[in-house]
């Protein structure tokens, strides 16, 4: 028995060490980002490098703004990601509601058809989308980035799955209480679905916030750059300003970190429902 307890203790100790190691390794790059964003460029080349955050963040940020209009990129990102998320939520929840709660012809084939497109990778669409946007003159426009994935197969799938859980009697009860057909959707179905909507909203927002390849193709005017494009542009400049890059990076990730930390349960629900394992 005693050797068992000892073995058990060793096991627990090892487990903690492993967990701590992983945590530290994961945190290092993020910590380094903070350090790098708050020290002047000159101190990058000191030996040994700085390991403690400095106070230069604002100065670095001003330099960044002067170099590229990063705030403008943030604004672009916010406009695109927010409108995309809102539009996609409306489209997916409305269609998901119909698929979950109504009977209509071709319902099953249509739904499975959408499901089949879940596996289509983005690079299969980019070239025609580019040609299309060029032809209708939408390059360098918000709409060109917002519209294409707003009809999101994953979104409609999640909405349908979750809305199926709404009891029919709830909708019938509302009908008897005098609700119109449209009120069934927005007064009953939508409000009962808020957690799922939040989870889906987070997935959609995050996908659009960090989208790179497609915006890179469509948005070529620096005035229209989203955050990832502005960051990549900074990296690709003739002379590379690490301090500015890190300031920009910290600006790019902080809002999402705040969302992540405050709405972690929806975040995780989103990730899990995205993995379709329920």
């Amino acid at each position, binding site marked *: 028995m005693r050797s068992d307890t000892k073995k058990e203790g060793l096991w627990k100790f090892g487990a903690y060490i492993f967990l701590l190691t992983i945590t530290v390794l994961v945190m290092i790059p993020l910590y380094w980002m903070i350090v790098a964003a708050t020290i002047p460029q000159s101190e990058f080349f000191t030996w040994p490098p700085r390991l403690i955050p400095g106070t230069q963040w604002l100065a670095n940020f001003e330099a960044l703004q002067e170099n590229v209009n990063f705030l403008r990129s943030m604004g672009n990102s916010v406009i695109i990601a927010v409108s995309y998320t809102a539009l996609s939520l409306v489209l997916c929840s409305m269609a998901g509601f119909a698929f979950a709660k109504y009977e209509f012809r071709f319902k099953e084939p249509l739904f499975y058809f959408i499901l089949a497109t879940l596996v289509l990778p983005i690079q299969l669409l980019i070239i025609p989308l580019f040609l299309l946007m060029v032809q209708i003159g939408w390059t360098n426009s918000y709409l060109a980035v917002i519209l294409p994935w707003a009809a999101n197969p994953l979104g409609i799938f999640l909405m349908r799955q979750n809305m199926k859980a709404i*009891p029919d009697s709830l909708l019938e009860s*509302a009908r*008897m209480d005098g609700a119109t057909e449209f009120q069934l959707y927005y007064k009953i179905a939508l409000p009962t679905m808020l957690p799922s909507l939040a989870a889906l909203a987070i997935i959609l927002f995050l996908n659009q916030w960090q989208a790179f390849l497609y915006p890179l193709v469509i948005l070529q005017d620096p005035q229209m750059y989203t955050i990832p494009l502005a960051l990549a542009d900074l990296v690709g400049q003739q002379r590379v300003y690490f301090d500015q890059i890190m300031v920009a990076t910290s600006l790019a990730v902080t809002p999402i970190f705040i969302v992540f930390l405050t709405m972690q349960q929806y975040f995780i629900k989103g990730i899990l429902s995205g993995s379709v394992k329920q």
Partner: protein
Amino acid sequence: MATIDITNLRKEFGDGNERIVAVEDFDLTIQDGEFLVFVGPSGCGKTTTLRCIAGLEDVTEGTIEFDGEDVTDRRARDRDVAMVFQNYALYPHMTVRKNIGFPLRLSTKKSTDEIDDEVEAIASMLGIETLLDQKPRELSGGQQQRVALGRAIIRDPQLFLMDEPLSNLDAKLRSTMRTELQELQTELGVTTAYVTHDQTEAMAMGDRIAVMNDGELQQVGTASEVYRAPENEFVAGFIGSPSINLLTADVDGATLRGPGGFAYEMEDPSLVEGHDRIRVGVRPEDLELDPDGGMPSEVTVVEEMGNENFLYAVMGDIDITARIESVIHPEAGKTVTFGFDEEDLYLFDAETTEAVKTKTGETDVDYDQYVQPSH
């Protein structure tokens, strides 16, 4: 308040070649202010009928009239009907106050204050005034039930529809709510159609009971009518707990012979005239231990209820249930003999299952003598 007339109702589900008939040949009038209970086994069409009355299902054929006005093609929301669902169907995102007030907010032009006053009046009537600002998931089953009732009552509808509203409650609460519902219905006087699969509940609650099977209405009547004078074998078998003992007997003049040595000499042979075979029914409480009776049965189990004993036995390949005095404890494996009075005997046609003879002799007692004169 309304009288509901249902004429020749037929409801089919599905399309193309796979049509399923849920309800057919259904004629019924629910009287103004009546508490009518639909009862039957699951799948008998009782809920479908209720949903047709509600306007939640289109009817395939037939008409539904409220006070002589044809509402067959009217939408649920325009029928002035309130419904309590089995799972209560409370809106999870609304507080109790909002839930109860929801129908008024949708269908009237009353101000928020007026609605609030009405909600509070109803909540206090139902004893849930302290729960008004809670969400449904914070409430117990019984409390949710009351909220659902409140939401139905507040509209002051012509008709209440209730679909197994008590089946999600535990046994004790169910009997409390049963009484409460009846009192409430009497007080409000609103015509009510109530669906249950539980015949005890049906007997206890309904002014009249509509027994359904396989999509067809079998019989409508008061509790004692369907119990004493079932129109067919199905009603006899469905109503009453424990259920009636049934067996098939060969008719030989005045003598009935059945499985396991069953033999009975009819006092009135004219009843079985013209039948070669007949279905015989005796209710468990009408069986008595009688050494001269015609039902030799082997005892399998005796359940003691305290006030009486349930005796389970087999006669040939037939299971027999009898309710006997609590002081009699036959041993399992012993053979006993049951007898019964002919006036308690039920007979059904072996082919059509229609009743040939039902209970006779029992009549209602004049109870005026027991009533205290009121001042």
